[in-house]
């Protein structure tokens, strides 16, 4: 019973999936495009981080006496 089910499922899967042809490769070489994409990848800084960095700079500019303390704890 179990073997018959397996055969039936195999036949169903084979009939549902199209056969892979011999020339199934893409029409062009994708590797150079992937390399270009990796090279062009830049770090996108979200606005929240810009705001945090700006607030930190403003704080340090307003209270320069705290800079040695922050460096001490760095």
């Amino acid at each position: 019973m179990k073997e018959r089910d397996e055969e039936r499922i195999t036949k169903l899967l084979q009939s549902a999936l199209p056969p892979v042809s011999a020339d199934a490769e893409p029409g062009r070489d994708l590797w150079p495009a992937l390399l270009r994409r990796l090279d062009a990848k830049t770090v996108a800084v979200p606005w929240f981080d810009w705001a945090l960095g700006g607030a930190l700079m403003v704080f340090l500019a307003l209270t320069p006496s705290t800079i040695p303390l922050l460096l001490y704890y760095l």
Partner: protein
Amino acid sequence: MSTHPHLRAYIAGLFIPSLVLPVMLFGGFLVRSMLQDPFPFERGLIFPLAFVPLLWGLWNLLWLCTHERTRLPISLHGALLPLLLLPMGTCVATWLGILSLGNTGATWFHNVFVPYAWIAPCYCAAIVGYYLIWKYVVGFLNRVLGIA
């Protein structure tokens, strides 16, 4: 790049303190040479030189060992480090006599007076700085060294 990930994590964590410390040394000696009343700069170096790089390296190592379980981003993990550094640094500074606690504020290096009202904003600034540094610098180094 698949070997010794713990060593690479420790080295990536050490990177920022090892860059900042020479600048800090130079700036400190320069400021002290200009001041009439020189502050005890050498004693103040013990914590940044001995503890901070070690803790940064170990903190990055801890992230490597735990992030698969905790899923905590490295930025938030780094932002937690001041919670450890501040009490440690304060204890060491008090013990070495470079921090004196007064009624209205604390005095570092016998010269830098910070009112207690400023401690919380300073702490927030440290957490923000750590968040950004760990997110963009340590995270980048971890990716470069193949551990993130």
